[in-house]
């Protein structure tokens, strides 16, 4: 447990917070934490308040269930209601609203939706239920995509004909670029997603200093990890030479996990993807490669492209999840926050997942009950 407790050392945290304040400029350094896991940890440990006013933290789009388009959820719901089809999904996805209902709502209407811990569990379902078609929902960024790729490869090796994947996988760097290109937020630094970087390597984030002049510190998820990364960003600003800093040395290497990258390249092809809150981003998603078309649920069930479908049905209800995902609005600034929209009755996806910015603010923020 040293690997967890050791990185929650309160004395080290206090020291790091003092250093950040001592080195901070008069103008707050605006740092976006890309990853929803970071948002959760930052709120849980009270780091937002501890670092103000030296550092202003903004949440980003790094919550895979939050950026899944309504139209994708609608298709998954439709599949679960088809006779003979079982939809398998990670638990985070089950309460995310589509246009009318969620996968949980589909269950109440007789849809067959099963929660799995690992994609491999969905293969086991396919082996046990040979008369049913099992569709695994492939969600997540580069951290999760290789686990789905490995599962697809396994399905092919076994010749499993009743298993397929509905890929909604997304890539992190096109979303980061889309946010910076849109120019809605000015960022002085980015807290890089440590577990994405465990796969891609920290060098994959060099485009930030090189093309945008923004420093990036790849970070782990314990409080001292995050504080060390933010201190490195503050130091980088003082030096005036933006670069990528690997503040998660125990988990991240320069080049990342070559085996995982190889499997992703083999099983997937890069495709445009519809992001809730951001829109259609070219070359930002992963579809199944031609050679794995047989295990592609979109092709097996002849499903339409979601690009034309609704991205964020909740926006019509006044939900500002899209702005939250782009770092433009803080969750408590949304008129629905904590009133019409709570974790028990979420309007938008940011209030559903534990790592959604609204859910994290609601649970741990100053305005929390």
């Amino acid at each position, binding site marked *: 447990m040293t690997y967890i407790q050791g990185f929650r050392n309160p004395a080290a945290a*206090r020291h790091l917070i003092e250093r950040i304040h001592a080195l901070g400029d008069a103008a707050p350094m605006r740092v976006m934490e890309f990853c929803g896991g970071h948002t959760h940890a930052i709120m849980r440990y009270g780091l937002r308040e501890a670092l103000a006013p030296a550092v202003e933290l903004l949440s980003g789009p*790094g919550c895979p269930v939050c950026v899944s388009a309504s139209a994708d959820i609608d298709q998954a719901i439709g599949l679960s209601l088809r006779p003979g089809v079982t939809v398998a999904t990670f638990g985070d996805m089950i309460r995310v609203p589509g246009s009318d209902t969620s996968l949980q709502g589909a269950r109440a209407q007789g849809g067959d939706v099963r929660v799995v811990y*690992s994609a491999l569990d969905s293969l086991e379902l396919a082996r046990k239920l040979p008369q049913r078609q099992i569709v695994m929902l492939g969600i997540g*960024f580069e*951290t999760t995509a290789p*686990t789905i790729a490995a599962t697809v490869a396994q399905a092919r090796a076994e010749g499993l004909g009743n298993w397929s994947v509905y890929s909604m996988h997304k890539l992190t760097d096109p979303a980061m670029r889309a946010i910076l290109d849109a120019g809605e937020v000015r960022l002085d630094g980015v807290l890089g997603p440590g577990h994405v970087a465990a796969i891609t390597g920290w060098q994959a984030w060099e485009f930030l200093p090189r093309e945008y002049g923004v420093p990036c510190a790849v970070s782990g998820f314990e409080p*001292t990890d995050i504080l*060390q990364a933010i201190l490195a960003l503050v130091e980088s600003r003082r030096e005036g030479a933006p670069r990528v800093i690997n503040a998660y040395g*125990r988990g991240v290497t320069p080049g990342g996990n070559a085996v995982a990258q190889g499997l992703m390249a083999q099983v997937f092809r890069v495709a445009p993807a519809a992001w809730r809150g951001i829109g259609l981003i070219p070359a930002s998603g992963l579809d199944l490669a031609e050679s794995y078309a047989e295990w592609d649920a979109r092709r097996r069930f002849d499903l339409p492209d979601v690009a034309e479908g609704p991205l964020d049905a909740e926006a019509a209800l006044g939900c500002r999840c899209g702005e939250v995902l782009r770092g433009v609005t803080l969750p408590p600034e949304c008129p629905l926050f904590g009133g019409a929209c709570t974790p028990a009755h979420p309007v938008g996806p940011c209030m559903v997942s534990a790592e959604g910015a609204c859910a994290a603010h609601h649970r741990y923020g100053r305005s929390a009950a």
Partner: protein
Amino acid sequence: MCLAVPVRVVEIEGQVARVELGGVLREISLVLTPDAQVGDYVLIHTGFAISVLDEEEAQETLRLFAELEAAEALLDKEASDTETADA
């Protein structure tokens, strides 16, 4: 979603490892980290090891934290000694 936790590999059989997680043994896949050895700490994500942790890197950081903790304790002691002397 990108939650990954560090666990120690207890046993390896082919591409499957037994790891200790929250006091129970659990089977995980080593397909993505074929080089993992018994005794290594790996980051697991949805039933797969995605990275073998660099123990040396981790220990270096922890040593630094221990030094900070010791320095803080010393400062606290000095402060309380000064208070006692003042009183």
